[in-house]
């Protein structure tokens, strides 16, 4: 038996062969190229077309960037230097070097640059409890980075030691607070608006302080009146008191106080603001006010109350139906008709109000989508627990609805920030058109095209892209479903 077997089967392998290497076309770079760039004739044609387009674009952009010239006082000087070097094209960034302060601050007085810088640093410290509430590491890191940035910027501006010490002291104290008690930073957030107003516009210290007293009235009415009037009643009474206070007492009191104790900062007029300072002021203010307003509008549109619902729908659809430019022109041309004769308030404030309305209408639609996406069971569960309307919204509905709407909310914010460039049409000096027009009107830089736009566009890109990346981080962090 074994004999016959031995004769019919001549060879039996008793060891495993080592695995053969994959064919050349199925491994390494060749495989990657084949799968990702040359999978089939259509795909290969696309790749070749893409390479051609890329070559066309880069072959003119890269030499232009590589031959960048930073040290030139005028366009003709820059071109001469480039010609002397034998380069045909090159970017003349000298225009940014000589005019960067206008791109950043507009016509803000140069010796007061520390004020917007400090306000900018404080902005991040005020934002840190909003973005990362209670996180010691995040709060300290943000505060520390803001402090370092502001101090470096002040050093770069060549500020005196005294001013550096004051600004640095304030910021370092807040950084220490962020480390010791990160939750206490909420107070910085609460007080940020008046402090920022004082820093940016200057003037008497008393106007923001007295205006703050109005909010104090609301809080006081809530604390003492809650027992008698209930939550809604006491807050309503507080608001009525505060409005009366602002209309009749605020201004005379502030004037009287500043006559008695004249302390304050050098005032800066609104028409001196410009550049990214202006864009950030309008953007940040409108963003922070449009979110609560948008939530209220969305709740109004979802409400069962017919009149509230009709008014909300009317407001939202009107604002969304007209271009932002017409609203801005309303701010600059028409508000003088709608307000009592003789009122004339700041153009930046008027623009902020209209931009806030505009963003709020869009936010309302985004948030309405989130509200509609919640299962009905959530509303019914809140009712079954015996929560009243505001408790249900605050504890059950809004946290979930807002979480769903984060991408939409952030893209509305990005849109709002980009739209701040439109304020140039009502005479404000936005970085894109306002400042660039001034720069290009300068005889030294007449005929410069790409550099200012590339510079402003790059800064906008960094800020908007940063916002969208933060929204993706937030989405990942808040995701609770298991996907």
């Amino acid at each position: 038996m074994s004999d016959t077997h031995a004769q019919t089967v001549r060879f039996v392998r008793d060891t495993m062969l080592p695995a053969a290497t994959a064919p050349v076309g199925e491994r390494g770079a060749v495989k990657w190229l084949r799968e990702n760039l040359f999978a089939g004739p259509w795909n290969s044609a696309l790749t070749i077309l893409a390479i051609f387009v890329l070559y066309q674009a880069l072959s003119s952009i890269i030499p232009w960037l590589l031959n960048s010239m930073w040290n030139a006082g005028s366009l003709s000087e820059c071109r001469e230097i480039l010609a002397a070097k034998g380069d045909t094209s090159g970017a003349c960034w000298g225009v940014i070097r000589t005019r960067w302060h206008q791109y950043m601050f507009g016509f803000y007085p140069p010796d007061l640059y520390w004020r917007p810088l400090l306000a900018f640093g404080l902005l991040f410290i005020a934002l840190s409890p909003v973005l990362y509430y209670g996180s010691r590491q995040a709060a300290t890191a943000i505060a520390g980075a803001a402090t370092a940035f502001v101090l470096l910027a002040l050093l770069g501006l060549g500020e005196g030691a005294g001013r550096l010490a004051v600004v640095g002291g304030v910021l370092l104290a807040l950084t220490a607070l962020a480390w010791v008690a990160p939750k206490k930073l909420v107070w910085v957030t609460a007080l940020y608006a008046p402090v920022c107003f004082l820093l940016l516009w200057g003037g008497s210290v008393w106007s923001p302080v007295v205006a703050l007293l109005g909010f104090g009235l609301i809080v006081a009415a809530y604390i003492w009146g809650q027992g008698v009037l209930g939550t809604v009643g006491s807050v309503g009474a507080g608001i009525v008191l505060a409005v009366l206070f602002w209309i009749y007492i605020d201004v005379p009191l502030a004037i009287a106080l500043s006559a008695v104790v004249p302390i304050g900062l050098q005032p800066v007029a609104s028409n001196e603001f410009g550049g990214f300072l202006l864009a950030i002021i309008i953007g940040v203010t409108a963003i922070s006010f449009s979110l609560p307003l948008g939530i209220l509008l969305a709740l109004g549109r979802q409400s069962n109350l017919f009149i509230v619902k009709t008014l909300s729908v009317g407001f939202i659809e009107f604002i969304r139906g007209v271009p932002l430019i017409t609203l801005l022109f309303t701010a600059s041309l028409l508000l003088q008709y709608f307000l009592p004769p003789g009122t004339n308030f700041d153009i930046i404030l008027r623009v902020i109000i209209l931009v806030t309305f505009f963003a709020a209408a869009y936010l309302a639609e985004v948030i309405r989508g989130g509200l509609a996406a919640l299962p009905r069971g959530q509303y019914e569960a809140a009712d079954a627990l015996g929560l009243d309307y505001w408790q249900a919204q605050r504890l059950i509905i809004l946290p979930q609805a807002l979480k769903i709407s984060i991408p939409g909310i952030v893209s509305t914010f990005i849109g709002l920030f980009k739209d701040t460039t439109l304020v140039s049409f009502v005479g404000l000096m936005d970085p894109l058109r306002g400042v660039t027009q001034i720069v290009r009107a300068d005889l030294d830089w007449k005929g410069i095209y790409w550099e200012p736009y590339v510079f402003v566009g790059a800064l906008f890109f960094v800020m908007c892209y940063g916002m969208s990346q933060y929204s993706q981080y937030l989405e990942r962090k808040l995701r609770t479903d298991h996907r």
Partner: protein
Amino acid sequence: MHMAMASDAPGNEFRLGMLIYDTRYRSLTIQVIVLILFGLAVAWLLNNTVQNLEAKGRTFNYGFLWQRAGYDIQQQLIPYTNDSTHFRALLVGLMNTLVVAILGCIGATIVGIIVGVLRLSKNWLVSKLMTIYVEIFRNIPLLLWILFIFVPLGELAPNPTDFRVTEEMQAAGEEPRASMILFDTVAITARGVNAPYPLLERPLGTVDVAGIPFNLSVLAFLAVVGASFYANSLIRRRARAVQEATGVRPVIWWKSLLILFAPAIVFLWALGFHLEVPELTRFNFSGGVLVQNSFIALLIALILYTGAFIAEIVRAGILAVSKGQTEAAFALGLRPNRTMSLIILPQALRVIIPPLISQFLNLTKNTSLGIAVSYLDLRGTLGGITLNQTGRELECMLLMMLIYLIISLIISSLMNIYNRSVRLKER
């Protein structure tokens, strides 16, 4: 029974406190308060407006619309001279707004679909390039793109005289400083783009309706094209009926091609269709049509900017169709392109249409950015020169907002009808 007793229990007498604490009356109370506050606010605004108008010695009326406008508009789709009325100028501006909006929506949709599909391509290089395009255009203001295209077009592009070849230059064998593109038919100059213009040797004439001339040739051409499409749909329907009955679909593509193109071509040939190419005269181009640089910059910027947003919508829509659908289609033996057209696209469209509508609305409203390049659209005529000449800010701004509002409402209702027709029919 018990419920009725329970609600009767507190007694029926009405107390003032029930207005706030009884849920039966509370919503009514709140609404009445809101209505009163709203009425007060409106009355306050109206009162202020009346007082302000009186203080300035002005009235509120639209009579100025029938006065002579006295300014020129470069791009006019309906006849207009500076002797026409402000109302006529408004109409010209409205047409200019609409033509940018319509061409922009079409262009942005095409760009958006191509980019959105290419972003999902397996080709690494192409999908990365498309990602870069989308991110760059979405994160930089539209105003920058308009200026970025317009400023060089106006200041770097050659003058018409640069296209001329003088005898000395011929003798020296020099080339002119600029040359026309696309087989010598299009000239890009600092004054605008000279492009060929379609002309007819035997036009059908025009007919005036309410002062707006309608070109009969164009209307007849549209009628011919419409009839071709209708005939084509009849052919397709018959083919489908045959397929249902016999299981074999007859070959109809050549019939479709013939019926779609032959009548239009024959019609154009009968009317003597030809293109008038711009010719260089002594100082400028003549013949053809001069397209404003502002129009081109605005249109291209709007298409590229909105196209990036639409690309994201298209990508999200295609990704929203679950992979099981594709696999099921393959399991049924459908080929990839039939899978795309029969299974994936109809489902993706439902996700794509609603955000697409709001992009169209955004694009239409963004045409008002033509202000940056002095494009005389509705805002440029009614809200610009007319407003400045007559000084009637209140009337002009309110009318302009109303017109934009109507355009927006029309677009959104049209698109909502379409949306309803493709929506999932739930039972």
